[in-house]
């Protein structure tokens, strides 16, 4: 993850943060999952990547972000 940060590879960051979120979510750790989802979402949003929509939805479902339609 630090490598992707260092290289400015923000698409890679979307994937890595999403993976981290998935793992925490599977472990039932909602706060940690939402922390990682937030990062995945921000980097997806920054690039205008389509992943942003699904990530926003996941956060909104947990009541952690407004749903952006």
């Amino acid at each position: 993850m630090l490598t992707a940060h260092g290289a400015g590879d923000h698409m890679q960051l979307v994937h890595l943060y999403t993976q981290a979120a998935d793992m925490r979510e599977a472990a039932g750790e909602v706060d940690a999952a939402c922390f990682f989802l937030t990062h995945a979402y921000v980097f997806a949003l920054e690039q205008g990547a389509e992943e942003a929509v699904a990530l926003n939805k996941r956060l909104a479902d947990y009541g952690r972000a407004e749903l952006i339609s």
Partner: protein
Amino acid sequence: MNKHEHLSSVLQSVNTANGLPNAHYIDPDVFEEEKAAVLFANWSGIGFGKDVPEVGDAMPVDFLGMPLLIVRNKQGEVAVFQNTCRHRGMILVDKPKKIGGVIRCPYHSWCYALNGDLHATPHVGGPGHNMHEDIYKSDLGLLRIRSYVWRDVIFVNVDGQALEFEEVHADLMARWAEFEVPVHHGGPESSFKLEVATNWKLAVENYCESYHLPWVHPGLNSYSRLEDHYNIEELGKYSGQGTLVYRQLKGEGGEMFPDFEGLSEKWDEGAEYITVYPNVLLGVQRDHAFAIVLEPKACEQTVEHIELYYAQSSEDTPELADLRVKNAEQWKVVFEEDIFVVEGMQKGRHGAYFDGGRFSPAMDGPTHNFHHWVATQLTNRE
């Protein structure tokens, strides 16, 4: 005594007026005053549309210390924002870049859409909580700076109080209505920057007058005599000069630039060079045009951003590439010839006994018109 008493002699007719006093060129306090009353209160040029050609292009500009961000939005229009994050005031964009989705602040990653709306506030309600009941995104969009694009120049009214651009410059826009056609920038060789040790106003003044042509540009004057030029001056509005003997540049094989479409006969050999007050110098000719933005860096330091435009794009006229280079070189010589005068006049204004100078009643109308306008901006604010 009122603060601007000393400007009363500037406000007289050109025959008897004096120019703006030295302080307007060398005193940092007056520079600050003019920054507010002249440059921020009117429509000043800060850049060119061609520098943000595509949707998502973003370019930061420091305009007299004011951080601005020029973007090309989703509609393909130019928009200008204050380049400052609404959270802790971080500079949002520090070098030109392409915005794929949103503008993400590099500090805490608040994200803004290209229309300035605040889109995301990560962790604002604590880790993983991206909302807070007291944070209304709709109140926290980027602050928009009024802007208007004319002849590819991006103008801004920083203080937000000026009349609409089209209202302020209605006469000038009508005068040049025939040139209201698309302009195509000539590419990298048609773009140059001159750094000059002068107050920005002296560059305006020198541009407005033809009096100096035979002395400073003898090359230009060999085919364009002083008597073939006329003064352009509209009190309170704009000024410059025109020529009646514009000659088109020809290449080795006799090739020429294509004309802007639909021009009347007046422009066969006519051309005009006008200052859009305060700091934009424009030139129109049948086959090419130019735009110069004077960037006031400091009281005695100015950068001239010079750009050449054509009726047809470089992609459509590759055969004219050499001619474009030749044309740019020719103009560069002319603009460089002016450097020693604007720098020399700047030095001259450290002569403590200089009284602003007297004008030639016949030749200096356009220069005086500009002084009159500047003085009016200052006295109006009392």
